[in-house]
């Protein structure tokens, strides 16, 4: 009976595959990825009709003619709370600008009281739109709050910012979009 040495070959092959796997893991980025893409970019925004916590009912279709910013928010989410001062600053900047954008906070899966209390403490008087059944979040494909979306005066989705905002970023992004914008108005 011949006994050819096979163990070195088999274990060598297994070893090569495993080393490949290890190299792959070594370079794998921990979690996350670029989720700021969306199939909605450049498309007409989904229908958004809902009630508001602190004002009249909201209908996106009636907001045509101005830039609209949606901020998807939850009072229990830490990054949402952290980015809040930048949103307050953003509304101040917009009030001073020529063609002010309208900011709306959209709230899913949170209690009215908690949201109102948060805004009372931390400032911000812009409209807060309810999304109790999650229809707006799903229509936009919001994965994880906070997310901020920019819609142009013709009702087309122009930008999606996933995750917390940094100081001044929203204003900068909006100005950039405004300068590119060649809609029916201008």
């Amino acid at each position, binding site marked *: 009976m011949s006994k050819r040495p096979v163990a070195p070959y088999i274990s060598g092959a297994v070893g090569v595959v495993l080393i490949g796997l290890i190299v792959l893991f070594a370079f794998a980025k921990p979690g996350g990825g670029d989720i700021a893409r969306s199939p909605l970019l450049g498309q007409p925004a989904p229908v958004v009709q809902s009630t508001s916590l602190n004002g009249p009912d909201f209908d996106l279709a009636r907001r045509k003619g101005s830039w609209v910013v949606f901020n998807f928010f939850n009072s229990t989410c830490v990054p949402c709370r952290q980015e809040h001062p930048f949103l307050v600053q953003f509304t101040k900047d917009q009030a001073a600008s020529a063609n002010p954008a309208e900011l709306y906070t959209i709230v899913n899966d949170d209690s009215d009281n908690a949201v109102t209390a948060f805004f009372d403490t931390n400032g911000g008087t812009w409209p807060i739109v309810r999304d109790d059944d999650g229809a707006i979040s*799903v229509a936009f*494909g919001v994965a*994880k709050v906070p997310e901020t979306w920019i819609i142009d005066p013709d009702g087309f989705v122009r930008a999606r910012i996933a995750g917390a905002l940094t100081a001044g970023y929203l204003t900068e992004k909006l100005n950039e979009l405004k300068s590119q914008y060649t809609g029916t108005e201008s």
Partner: protein
Amino acid sequence: MKKLKSWPVWMLMGVIVVALLAVGATKDSGPRTQGDRIDAISKRLACPTCDGESVYVSRASAAEAIRTQVARDVASGKLTDNQIIAGIARTFNAQVLLVPRATGLDSLVWVLPIAALVCSVVGLAMAFRRWKRQNLGDASAQDIALVERLLAQDPTDDENV
């Protein structure tokens, strides 16, 4: 008793099994409730925020929202399960699909398991062939006859390991 355990009885058993399975497979399983449909669809969708959990499993708000949307679509009664899934995959990109597609690189996840199975079965078959050849090669015809006779005699054939 001995007669009972003969081949015709086994054939009969086979026929019974096939017939019963055919009956069971074609029988109507009764109406699916809307809840069952929602469950079936949400099991095929990934919760976009929770890395690997399905919408069915997850209690995250994004999953809750998608589940509500599925419930609305199911209640409207106009769309098939696949259409509802396609609709949600459109807004969220394909990363909410829990079943990998069978095209491109993704198909590897389907091909490799089958390849692994085929390789091991072929490997095993080759090993058996080699063993058989070895056995016959080493033993003389007399040896083989001896072993066969002893095997046939062995009364316990060792059920108790």
